[in-house]
């Protein structure tokens, strides 16, 4: 057993756990933060996406002990216009991929603001690349939605991105 201090959604939680417990299981099973979902437990679906110091990670591929002292944000700690936009654009059906989509999108928007290119960005060195539907879809492709709510998800993200640029 290892004792660690996890900072989740601004609160420090202390945990006694085996070193092989994933961050995802620590959140879901030990801290009862079940908003983060498990779709595959092997980095293939994105349902478990959380933010670690603002960057998106697949928490199923992370060991909880590695993240001691890092600032973890789960869906329970998110309060952002994107959530309402998902509902307005019906970017969800069953809701099981939704937490991951939202956390992933928040980090993706930050990546874009920081000038990170994607595989569909024509010129990787260009600045101020417009967040087109194709750009959003490419950058969100690590988050599967079997219900096929992709169009609504992209619309929600695009609307929020436009709102942020307008500000």
């Amino acid at each position, binding site marked *: 057993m290892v004792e660690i201090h996890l900072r989740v959604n601004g609160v420090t939680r202390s945990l006694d756990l*085996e070193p*092989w*417990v994933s961050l995802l*299981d620590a959140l*879901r*099973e030990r801290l*009862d*933060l*079940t*908003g*983060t*979902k*498990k*779709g*595959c*437990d*092997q*980095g*293939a*679906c994105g349902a478990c996406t959380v933010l670690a110091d603002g960057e998106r990670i697949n928490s199923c591929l992370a060991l909880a002990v590695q993240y001691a002292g890092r600032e973890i944000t*789960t*869906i*329970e700690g*998110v309060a952002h216009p994107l*959530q*309402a936009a*998902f*509902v*307005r654009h*019906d970017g*969800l*059906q*069953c*809701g*099981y*991929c*939704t*937490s991951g989509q*939202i956390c992933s999108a928040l980090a993706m928007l930050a990546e874009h603001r920081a000038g990170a290119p994607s595989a*569909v960005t024509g010129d990787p060195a260009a600045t101020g690349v417009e967040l087109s*539907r*194709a750009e*959003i*879809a*490419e950058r*969100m*492709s*690590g*988050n*599967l*939605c*079997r*219900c*096929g*709510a*992709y*169009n*609504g*998800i*992209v619309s929600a993200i695009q609307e929020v991105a436009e709102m942020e640029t307008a500000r």
Partner: protein
Amino acid sequence: MTDVQTRELPAGRTTGRNVGRPIDRVDGTAKTTGAARYAAEYPYPGLTHAALVHATISRGRITSVDTAEAAAVPGVLAVITHLNAPAMKPPPPVSPLNLSTLVSGTTVNYLNTDEVHWDGQPVGVVVAETREAALRAAALVRVGYRELPATVDFAAGQGDARPEKSSPIQPGAVAKGDAAAAIAAAAVSVDVRYTTPPHHHNAIEPHATTAVWDGDRLTVHEGSQSIAWMRSHLALRFGVPAAGVRVISPYVGGAFGGKGMVWAGTVLTVLAARVTGRPVRLALTREGVYRTVGGRTPSAQRVALGASADGALTGLIHTSVTRTGRVGGMPEQVTSASRHLYDVPNITLQQATVPLDLLSNTAMRAPGESIGTFALEAAIDELACELDMDPILLRMRNEPARDPVDGKRFAHRMLREAYALGAERFGWPERTPRPGSMRDGKWLVGMGVATAYHPSWQFSANVTVRLAADGTVVVRCGFHEMGMGGATAQAQIAADALGVPFEAVRVEYGDSDLPTGPAAGGSAQTASVAAGLLAACEKLKRSVLALARRSGDSPLRGRRPHDLQARDGGLWAGASGPGETYAAILGRAGRASVEARVGSDTRAGEILGQAKFIAKFLRDRRRWVKAACGAQFCEVRVDSDTGEVRVSRWVGSFDVGTVINAKTTAGQLRGGIVMGIGMALSEETLLDPRTGRIMNPNLAEYHVPVHADIPPIDVHYLNEPDPTMPLGLIGVGEVSITGVAAAISNAVYHATGKRVRDLPITLDKLL
């Protein structure tokens, strides 16, 4: 029940203020904040975790089990195998008198037998204090086997396929005229074979069960499409009264047919909780889902068509071979759309199945129709090319006025209108017919079209509606919410039926303690619940009126139910006549609430409900052919260097009757198209032909569509009511996956001149 809804139809249409509107789904906030709890997310004091041990042979008997190492893992509470498991009753044989018998995923009495029937069958379950310990210990259980010969390869087993017999539910063969002779004599003909691989649902929520016993009372949290049948099934298997079993399922993380049956994980979690006396949670691994939950059957199909030179069809042959498991599964109605789509004088349809030593197949979004329309609608396109005729023109040339097989009337069919609308939105006239003629740089551009078709169903639903003195309404029905927006749609319907604001209605669902709802299958749930709900609202309004008439002061005194309009939170005589609010009526009568109920959950009520359903089903079936239909248009771009296929545009134009919620309906229609795109281009479950073991049981190697694969999908619907359905609505869950694979394969042909008749259309097949 039926009469009431039929009478309701005009009123429902004209006073609809909520029905049809694009209202946000009521559970949207719970799902976007992480508050919605799914089956594996219920905390219980003393909760334990289970993991399964899977057989590693295709068929045989267990000869030895060594659990010593597993039991020694710290935290392990029990290692249960057939050597120490308590007896359970076997799954019941299917009986038409008790429809819950349809719900057994397989006929295997897990851990009550030493027999192995498929590679992956659970042969043990480990319970531990933590999930990690359970998984670790499960990997340490050593099982010895004596293998028996097994037949697992679909391609090799097809020769043994037996023709299906028809049943009242699944019409089998059709032999109208002499199709073979007509095709042989036809001016133009095609005769082609198509194959489709096995598919898996891959709902993003893997199946999970949390089971808690309290004496003989059992609580189960499970994402399910059939909570009432699951309750009956578990009660029977464990020999306890059904009244003490409660299945709770408010959120289902996707299902698509995969959560319709009761599979091993559910039964074994309940068993493990019985053995350990502790609450047990089993969250299947993704691989565990593939090993224990059935998927879509593969198919081999033949379609032959004959036509005169002007495109009048003279003969149609559609035959199919699919597989079941020797331990369960169902034949798929692969040729069902071929019964109804074209006006052909000579039709031969025949479905055959072969049982294999594999896990049962099970329903997956539009079982039968999704793969059947691939073959039929691709063959129609092939014929159009042979005829040098526009494929839409060919379809319209052969659009029937009545059912081609038995001359019954269509309850509703607006396929022509759907095509006209879709063609206009898509810009079909811009297409140049010659394959390869629409190049854009390195991209070969192709446009394809196909018909979507899915029968519409309606089951029985027990519903209660309670109206409180403050004007709020609670609708209660044990239906299922897997993402379709059912609670939102039913709240819209109740709001209009009672003339109250949408916000005043709360809908309770997903709990087997509620009045029994329909299973969520066959795209039937919305219509089924709506019928019960409308009837309950009618009853409720009559009760309220009776209350009002008891008072000498009520302006409703002397009024009859049919004089009244429900609006503005009360009952009023016509559009401008006198009336009063529910609050006033209930307040005067000193009543806190009034409740109305449709259907009964007693055993007698259940039998009566079932009998009514079957009677209505058979009556409807004698009179009408009922279905949703539509036209799928797509544009693909094929990379001329790599053969990669990208779907660049989509227009789906559907005839789905009255649309209850414009937003969630569009979402469901898009969702089906997305799954169809996966079926066309990337999805395939790969089995080792020697063992039948699934080789890609994960989301990394079974490729479902991702964001980047999906263009904006433009969906349209005609919004014309089907007069034979409650409020005129037709279910939308499945129709939109049908025709998708054909539209894509037709577009790929148009782009490249290559016909790929073997799904998925991967790039290797185009180079």
